[in-house]
C-alpha cells in the first residue's frame, strides 16, 4: 500500500478517492477505462493489512466505494466508512449491498442495470433453446463420434407455442419476453407488482405462473423475499416437461430441491448460469443431458463490460461534480 501511494503522482493525491475492496471483473479487464481526472482508486486488495484495519487507517475520508459480489457492502463495512455517501456496483444485481443500511444512512447506490439486459436476455434464450433442442448434448454426441455409430440423436421439443413464464419483468425480463415473442411463444409473467402497460398475462404468485407455464425464466433480483422462491412445490407445478432457466442469482432457486427434481425426472430440464455456492456446481448435474451449465458469464461480452465500466465512471464523475447520478437504485 505504501508503495502504491509513493507511485501516485503528486497531482492525483488531491483527487477524491474511490475505495475498491476487491476489483470487480470490469476493473480487472478494463482498468484503462477507469483512469479519470476526477478521482483515483484506493485499492484495498493490494494491502497486506486485514481489511478492517486498512479501512480504519486509510478510508476515513472515503465518500465512494466500488463493490462487486466478491466484496459485499455489509453494515459492518459501512460502519468503518464514516464519510461514505455512495456505493457503486458494476453489476445489475444489488443483493450484495445492505440496502436497508444504506437507505437508513442516506447513502446513494448505483448499479449497472440496463447495460447487461441484451446479453443476459440473449443467453437466456440461448439456454432455453439449448435445453429444448438438446444443442449442447447433441454437440457432445457428435464430438464423441457417436453419430455414425448410434444413429440419429433423440428428438427435442419445439419452442414455438410454448408458454414461457418470466419471473421478474425488469430490464432482463422485458428483453427476454420481447425475444421469445418472435419464436411464437406465449409470454406470461410474475413480478412484485403488475405492470399495466405490458401485454403479457400477469400471475401474482410464482406457483401459479409455474402451473400454467411450460418453461420458467428467472430474471428477478435476489432479495429476502425471492430467496429460495423456486422450490420443490414450484418445480413440481412446472412439471415433468418443464424447463427452468436461471440467469439471475443461484439462491433464488432451492438448489438442493431442484437437483433432486432433475435427477428424479420430475422436471424436464434446466439451463443454469448461476448457482448457490459458485464456483461449486452440484456434481449430480454433470451426468444429465437435459441440463446446460454456464459459469456465471451470461453478461460477459466486451460490449457489456465496456458499457458497464463507462457507466461506473460516469456515475463517479457525476457524484464528484455534484451532478445527478446516472443510474441510481431507487428504494421502494
Amino acid at each position, binding site marked *: 500500500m505504501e508503495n502504491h501511494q509513493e507511485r501516485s503522482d503528486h497531482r492525483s493525491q488531491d483527487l477524491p478517492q474511490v475505495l475498491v475492496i476487491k476489483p470487480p471483473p470490469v476493473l480487472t479487464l478494463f482498468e484503462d477505462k477507469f483512469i479519470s481526472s476526477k478521482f483515483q482508486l484506493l485499492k484495498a486488495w493490494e494491502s497486506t493489512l486485514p481489511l478492517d484495519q486498512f479501512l480504519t487507517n486509510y478510508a476515513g475520508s472515503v465518500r465512494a466505494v466500488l463493490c462487486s459480489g466478491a466484496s459485499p457492502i455489509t453494515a459492518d463495512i459501512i460502519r468503518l466508512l464514516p464519510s461514505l455517501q455512495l456505493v457503486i456496483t458494476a453489476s445489475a444485481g444489488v443483493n450484495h449491498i445492505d440496502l436497508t443500511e444504506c437507505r437508513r444512512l442516506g447513502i446513494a447506490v448505483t448499479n449497472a442495470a440496463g447495460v447487461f439486459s441484451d446479453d443476459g436476455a*440473449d443467453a437466456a434464450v440461448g439456454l432455453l433453446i439449448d435445453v429444448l433442442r438438446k444443442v449442447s448434448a447433441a454437440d457432445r454426441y457428435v464430438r464423441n463420434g457417436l453419430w455414425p455409430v448410434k444413429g440419429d440423436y433423440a*428428438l427435442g421439443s419445439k419452442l414455438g407455442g410454448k408458454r414461457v413464464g418470466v419471473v421478474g419483468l425488469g430490464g432482463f425480463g422485458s428483453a427476454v419476453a420481447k425475444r421469445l415473442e418472435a419464436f411464437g411463444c406465449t409470454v406470461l409473467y410474475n413480478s412484485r407488482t403488475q405492470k399495466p402497460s405490458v401485454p403479457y398475462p400477469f400471475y401474482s404468485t410464482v406457483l401459479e405462473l409455474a402451473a400454467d407455464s411450460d418453461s420458467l425464466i428467472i430474471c428477478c433480483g435476489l432479495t429476502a423475499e425471492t430467496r429460495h422462491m423456486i422450490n420443490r412445490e414450484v418445480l413440481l407445478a412446472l412439471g415433468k416437461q418443464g424447463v427452468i432457466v436461471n440467469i439471475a442469482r443461484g439462491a433464488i432457486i432451492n438448489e438442493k430441491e431442484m437437483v433432486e427434481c432433475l435427477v428424479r425426472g420430475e422436471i424436464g430440464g434446466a439451463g443454469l448460469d448461476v448457482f448457490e455456492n459458485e464456483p461449486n456446481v452440484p456434481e449430480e448435474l454433470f451426468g444429465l443431458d437435459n441440463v446446460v451449465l454456464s459459469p456465471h458469464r451470461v453478461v460477459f461480452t466486451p460490449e457489456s463490460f465496456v458499457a458497464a465500466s463507462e457507466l461506473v465512471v460516469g456515475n463517479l464523475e457525476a457524484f464528484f461534480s455534484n451532478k445527478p447520478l446516472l443510474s441510481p437504485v431507487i428504494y421502494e
Partner: protein
Amino acid sequence: MESIGVLMVCPMNSYLEHELEKRFNLFRFWTVPEKSAFLATNKNSIRAVVGNSSAGADAELIEVLPKLEIVASFSVGLDKIDLAKCKEKGIRVTNTPDVLTDDVADLAIGLMLAVLRKLCESDRYVRSGKWKKGDYRLTTKFTGKKVGIIGLGRIGMAVAKRAEAFSCPISYYSRTEKPEIKYKYYPGVVELAANCDILVVACSLTEETLHIINREVIDALGPKGVLINVGRGPHVDEPELVSALVERRLGGAGLDVFEHEPEVPEELFGLDNVVLLPHVGSGTVETRQAMADLVIGNLEAHFLNRPLLTPVV
C-alpha cells in the same frame, strides 16, 4: 389399400412406419440384404416411395419401379429426388413444407447463440469441474450483429423475423430480389458475406447452390464472421470450411448438416468456435409427428384420388 406397396428407403420415424403399415404394404428397404433381387421381385407392387433428407428416389431407383406413382419425402428438401425424371414419368412428388419452418429457424438462432456466446463450450468447462472464480473469459455479443441470409424462402424469412427481435440488421441474397421485402438485398453471396457478421444458409440445394459457400465467400466472411448451415451439407465446400476454421481465417461455425452425414470432419472436434449437430433441424417430437402426418395424408390423398396436400410435382 393394404395391397399397395410402399417402399421406405431408410429408417426415419417409427410412428410413420407404424401408420404406413396399418394402411399399406410397407417395405423397409434398409432391412433387405439383396436389394437388386428384392426390387426385381417386388417392382410391380411398389407404387410409392417414402424418402427423407438422407435418401430419396434417384433416376436409378425410379427406372426399376415401373408402377411408381408417387414419391413422398419426409423432408422439405428435394435434393435426393430426381425431379426431372419424376416429371418426365408423371410421378407425383410431395414434401413437408411449413410444419418444420419454425423448428429449423429456431435451431438456426440457437446455433448463432451457441457459437457466439460459447454455450456448449461453457457447459463443457463447467462439467470438467475446472470452474474457478475469477475466470473472466468474454464471449461475443449477439444482439445487433448483422445477419445475412442466403435464401429468403419460408425458413429464411422465419430466421429473419427471429433475428430482428435481437435487433439484428438483416440482409439477404436470393436468385431474385424481392421488392416487397424491407431487408437489404445483395446480388452476390460474396458481397453479402463481406457485409454481415453471421451468414446463414437457408436455401434449397440445387445444381446452382452446390458449394455456394466456397473459399471466396469464407474469406469475405472473415476471421470475425460466423457461418450457420441449416441447409444441406453440400451447400458448403467442406474441406475449405474446415481449414478456414482450423486456421482461424473464419471466426466460427454452427453446423447442422455435413457433406457426408453422419461423418463429420474430426478436425472440428477440438475447436471451441464451432457447434456440431447431427442434422436435427426438424428434430422435435411435435414437428416429426406433423411431418409424418403430412406424408401419410399425401399418400392417402393420392390413392383415394383426392388433391395432394403438399405437392411439388
